């Protein structure tokens, strides 16, 4: 028996459930191209704003025992300059999902329109960056603003729109409901966190705090997908701490339609996509699943 790895999320057809997460190896079009050629079914671009930003000065990442701390600071060349990178990445012939950030719905709408003009297959709204003031999770923790942003972008978009939410909120389901006009949700962005170097006596990131990703946050991501899936019926892309096929299966079993992988590229490089796919297929065959759909949500009963 052969397992079929293809899946669909909010109308986006994917040859397998593994996408590249936003912000990892997606500043340079050639990097996205390589990741896609290494097996990812789609790539989410790094979050792009209207103006060029340098981000924070290094250190912008810090590896921890079982995770990664980062505060890149939304470095990006500005939407106009980024079109060229998308053009390069599109050579792979796979979906590119344009991630955007802005302080308000007008900015999000302008960015979404421009992204579409570059030929992206979907838009991802970054409503959840935990370490830049005025954008990201400051937008994403206000249900009224979330609703307005999602509706505004939906009204100018002909491609699916995903809202990427933050786990750093008291009531995630409330925010998810506010974002329910989106075609799908992406859960989760990083967890607000910090580390101090005890000999240098200073925070390790130049920004002080940042976002925690990697294996440490997987149980948080699983909980978020579970919680939202129990409360509402909307396509979900699971992300946070995936580093092996078990994690992919876990996210799917709590109701994800697809997943994204970021930090795991650290230890494993882009080769992680094909190695997870290989093991995922083996697992499905052993356990008797013919397709992703058969695993979806089985842990929700």
């Amino acid at each position, binding site marked *: 028996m052969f397992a079929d790895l293809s899946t669909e999320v909010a109308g986006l057809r994917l040859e397998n459930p593994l996408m590249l997460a936003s912000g990892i*190896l997606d500043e340079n079009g050639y990097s996205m191209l390589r990741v896609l050629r290494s097996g990812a079914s789609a790539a989410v671009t790094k979050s792009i704003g209207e103006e*060029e930003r340098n981000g924070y000065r*290094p*250190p912008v*990442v810090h590896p921890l025992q079982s995770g990664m701390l980062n505060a890149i600071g939304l470095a*990006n*060349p500005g939407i106009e300059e980024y079109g060229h990178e998308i053009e390069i990445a599109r050579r792979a012939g796979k979906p590119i999902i344009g991630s955007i950030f802005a302080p308000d719905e007008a900015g999000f709408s302008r960015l979404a329109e421009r992204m579409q003009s570059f030929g992206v297959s979907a838009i991802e709204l970054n409503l959840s960056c935990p370490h830049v003031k005025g954008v990201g999770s400051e937008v994403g923790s206000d249900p009224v603003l979330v609703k307005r942003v999602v509706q505004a972008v939906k009204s100018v978009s002909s491609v699916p729109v995903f809202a990427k939410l933050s786990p750093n909120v008291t009531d995630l389901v409330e925010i998810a409901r506010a974002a329910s006009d989106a075609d799908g949700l992406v859960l989760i962005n990083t967890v607000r966190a910090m580390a101090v170097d*005890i000999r*240098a006596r200073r925070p390790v990131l130049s920004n002080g705090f940042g976002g925690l990703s990697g294996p440490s946050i997987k149980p948080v991501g699983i909980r978020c997908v579970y919680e939202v899936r129990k409360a509402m019926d909307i396509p979900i892309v699971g992300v946070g701490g995936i580093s092996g096929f078990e994690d992919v299966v876990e996210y799917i079993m709590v109701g994800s339609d697809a997943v994204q992988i970021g930090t795991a590229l650290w230890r494993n*490089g882009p080769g992680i996509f094909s190695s997870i796919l290989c093991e995922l297929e083996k697992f499905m065959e052993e356990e008797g699943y013919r397709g992703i759909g058969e695993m979806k949500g089985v842990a929700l009963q």
Partner: protein
Amino acid sequence: MSYEYATVSGVKEEGRGVRTLWFQWERKVEPGQFVMVWVPGLGEIPLSLSSTDHTKSITIKSFGPVSEAITRMSPGDRIYLRGPYGRPFTRPTGQYLLIGGGSGMASLRPMVGPRAHAIISARSKDDLIFRDAFQPGRVHVTTDDGSEGFKGNTVDFLRTFDLSGFTEIYVCGPERMMFSVYRELRSRQVNARVEFSLERLMKCGIGLCDSCSIGGYQLCRDGPVFSIDELDRMEEFGRSRLVESGRRITL
């Protein structure tokens, strides 16, 4: 997890604005690998190890605030660092040639040995480093202003230089210089294995942030050393790179 640290045990002025700092650090490092050096409160930068024996060293040129702070360090100061990172040079098998431009000589320094030959280029006499590390007659010097050695740039000299005796050629310097060396070598019949140690802006050092990427490869993980054949497939080499924001500029 905290940074590792090492205590500076010695400092040496190598040339104009260039210093070597020695320190004990219990890690195995291969020539060509680099570390991320953090100056708390100021920033973090990649630096090659200019000595990879039990006593390690970095050789650094002051360009901006972080590199300047590092050159100002004295014995007893702590260097906070992580690594080593990156793919090293392959080991030489016969007589080999080092081609170094400016502070690019830092990463080639640990490759110096009895069978090493070198072409060292710099703007001017005072910018030349490490020429005394080689046996007399085996080192060729070029300066833009002719203040020492051959007057002209590396490629001007290379054009007339016989490469047939070398089994390996290792190159490190400014990208423009490396690109012309690359084209020169490609235009000739060279049997040696040729490796380049590239340079790009680096923010994370561990293959996540994409700021150091070239042709889909991360310099910090897949490089900084690449073979000449790998460069053939890199559309960006010598042509464009991304600045701090991720904006692409032409070189």
